[in-house]
């Protein structure tokens, strides 16, 4: 029966080619626009590490005086001070934790063959790799001993490994960062994520850094951050030492907490820590305030999906509504014109349900065709976005979910739009339409 209905529907569409074309076009454009903005939204807001996102938490500690206002909505600093970050980094609890900072170096091999180039680098603890599920192609992360002794070791990613060492196993080989010789201890698998969720302060859609070195090198090598530095009070800092001791915020901190109990325990720990720091006279604050947010909460807090994007998605759906109203009007007209034929069918024994079903199949076919065409329109739209701005190269694409969503949304929308006309047609008395007029 379904095949029969599809056949009937196809013939019906062919009978009024212009109207059918206009309807399919209207759906296609509506779906195309909606999918364009929805795809970007989807990519931006996607959980980047779904298997662990609720177990990885980032910290914000309010180490300012009571009454200090910052530029965030809840007046919480976005990063930590060096003192706090390193103190928590070397604490006993929890099992996995890491301070984190972005910097950069000139990379060269101290020979004439390779032209020196600039590369970003991330400074972290060794826990970073298991925490964020980073696998290694060769070697592994540095050892605890290397970290504690501030050894000049580096983990590089596959791309950098290809560039410097032709893709071979480079563990143990040497590379110069600025003028210091570093030894490669591991080659990390390429990290393909759309959103740089572990550091949203400095370019949410940049690629992850190609090099990782121990955070314990910050002090001895006097490595400056390439990220944001924010202060809340005047401190007259003039040396790197001063910077390390200051209340400026310039490092990030992540922990892994697998159970609710662990979260509770850690909250208590931080509470105690902040109270202690307050008593030491660093700041005057009656009630310690801190935020622990998991990956998705952190992305939300940082407004990764921009306002503009949310507005566009909203407007797109409204646009789709207009297209649907368009189609509804045309469907009404088309179905009601066909009423005499329906009258004949009913006289010949078709039940209301069968008529209703026939029409729903017809609108579904319309939706399907419109949805498929809509994918083409969306691809065009996404291409347009990609060609405007490099930032969106990875974001402005349709993944499998979006590709399936397009015809699904189209068919659902058409069915909703078609319900009323279909119901109208099947409920009128056949006799009326068998009379001549």
């Amino acid at each position: 029966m379904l095949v029969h209905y599809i056949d009937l529907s196809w013939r019906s569409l062919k009978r009024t080619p212009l109207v059918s074309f206009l309807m399919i076009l209207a759906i296609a454009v509506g779906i195309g626009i909606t999918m364009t903005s929805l795809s970007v939204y989807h990519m931006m807001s996607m959980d980047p590490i779904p298997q662990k996102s609720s177990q990885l938490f980032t910290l914000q500690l309010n180490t300012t005086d009571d009454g200090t206002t910052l530029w965030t909505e809840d007046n919480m600093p976005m990063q930590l001070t060096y003192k706090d970050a390193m103190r928590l980094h070397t604490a006993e609890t929890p099992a996995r934790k890491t301070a984190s900072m972005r910097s950069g170096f000139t990379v060269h091999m101290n020979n004439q063959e390779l032209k020196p180039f600039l590369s970003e680098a991330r400074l972290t603890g060794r826990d970073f790799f298991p925490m964020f599920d980073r696998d290694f192609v060769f070697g592994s992360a540095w050892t605890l001993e290397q970290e504690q002794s501030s050894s000049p070791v580096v983990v590089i990613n596959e791309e950098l490994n290809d560039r410097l060492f032709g893709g071979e196993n480079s563990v143990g080989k040497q590379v110069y960062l600025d003028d210091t010789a570093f030894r490669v201890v591991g080659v990390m698998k390429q990290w393909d994520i759309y959103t740089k969720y572990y550091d949203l302060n400095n370019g949410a859609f940049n690629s992850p850094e190609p090099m990782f070195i121990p955070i314990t090198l910050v002090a001895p090598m006097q490595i400056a951050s390439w990220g944001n530095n924010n202060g809340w009070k005047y401190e007259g800092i003039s040396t790197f030492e001063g910077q390390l001791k200051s209340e400026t915020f310039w490092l990030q901190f992540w922990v892994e907490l697998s159970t609710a109990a662990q979260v509770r325990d850690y909250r208590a720990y931080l509470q105690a820590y902040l109270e202690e720091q307050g008593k030491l006279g660093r700041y005057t604050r009656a009630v310690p305030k801190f935020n622990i947010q998991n990956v998705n909460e952190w992305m939300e807090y940082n407004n990764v999906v921009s306002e503009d994007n949310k507005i566009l998605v909203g407007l797109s759906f409204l646009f789709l509504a207009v297209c649907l109203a368009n189609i509804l009007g045309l469907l009404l007209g088309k179905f009601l014109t066909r009423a005499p034929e329906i009258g004949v069918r009913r006289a010949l024994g078709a039940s209301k349900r069968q008529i209703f079903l026939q029409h729903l199949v017809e609108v579904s076919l319309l939706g399907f065709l419109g949805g498929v065409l809509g994918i083409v329109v969306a691809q065009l739209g996404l291409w347009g976005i990609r060609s405007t701005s490099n930032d969106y190269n990875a974001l402005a694409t349709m993944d499998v979910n979006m590709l399936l969503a397009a015809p699904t949304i189209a068919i659902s929308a058409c069915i909703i739009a078609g319900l009323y006309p279909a119901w109208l047609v099947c409920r009128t008395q056949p006799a009326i339409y068998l009379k001549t007029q």
Partner: protein
Amino acid sequence: MLEIKPIFNSLLRSKAGALMLLVQIALTTMIVSNASSIIFDRMEYLSQATGYPEAEIFSFSVMSFDKNLDLTQKFEETETMLRNIPGVKNAALFNAVPVSGSGSATGLGLQPASEGGQDARSAYYMADENALDTLGISLVEGRNIRPDEVIESQTREILPKIVLITKTLADELFPAGDALGQTIYFGDKPLEVIGITAKMMGPWLKDSRPDNVAIIPFVSASIFQKIIVRTEANQRTAIMRQIENLMLEDHNKRVITGLQGMDDEKQNYNAADTLMLRMLIVLIVLLLSVTALGIFGLTVFNINKRTKQIGTRRALGARKSSIISYFLVENVIICLTGTALGSISAILLGQGLLDLYSVPALNSLYIISTVLFIITISILSVLIPANKAANISPSIATRSI
């Protein structure tokens, strides 16, 4: 003549089709009004003047990885080399590049920071006496920095005592207009205002105070140093192509990066807004087209459905113009109702957007022009099929069904 009452009654009787058109028109009015408001706001933002001769200026960063280098001395040589390139008007070391999205800012106050008091948020550039000329900015009051007032040092033991500020910053701190000669405080350090400059923007166009800028005559050459160069406009491309080689010849333990003209820099900073602008424009163009086509299609459909009726009317004495005006009136009734509904919805949507997001308040001008525009394209969309309808022969009335 206008048969308003019967047309209205007949619309009420066959509501559904007209209702759909009404809904379309209302939604279109609602969307287009708000979208055009956002579009114009963005266009205004994007076309704002930065104050700089953007086509003449480019910047780049130098990463020096020679541990043993005397940075201050080396960069003095570099600056001299750059200034001597034919076609270059001036060049200087800066701590930040305008409109790049990256830089430094602080609160400059009337009292030392430790004593509190009023301060104004301001971006600051640290550069020597060539700063103004390199940026192409003129002075409106006072004088430029003298070479002997510039502090070049790797430490902060000695600090400059003077500062140049923009007129906007001067007006904020000294509303009476007497900024020249006054002292302002960078933290606890006093700086005398010796000159007031014309409008120039800081590194962030989206800052809360984008044109509060101070120029402090302090140069501390760093291993990651930014340099700004100003050239004759038509020489810039050629010079930019040579820059990396010239810089590496000057000292080869360097990496040159981020070479970009100021206008491109601004474009990058504004990429997201430009994108939003384009998408919104595409959206409303498509929306208006869909609505126009919808009206067209529905009218054609109605006419086909009512062919017999039209023939009958002609037989009963209707002129061709009466037939056209019949459809026009029908359409205008739907249009006016739809746009009225749409205008109210537009106001509501505008209010909602204002509350949730940082968009400007919806000016009723946008609603009015949208309504007028929609009515116009609506009438145009009806005219063509209506014209065809008028040509239906009255003899249709006598043809058998």
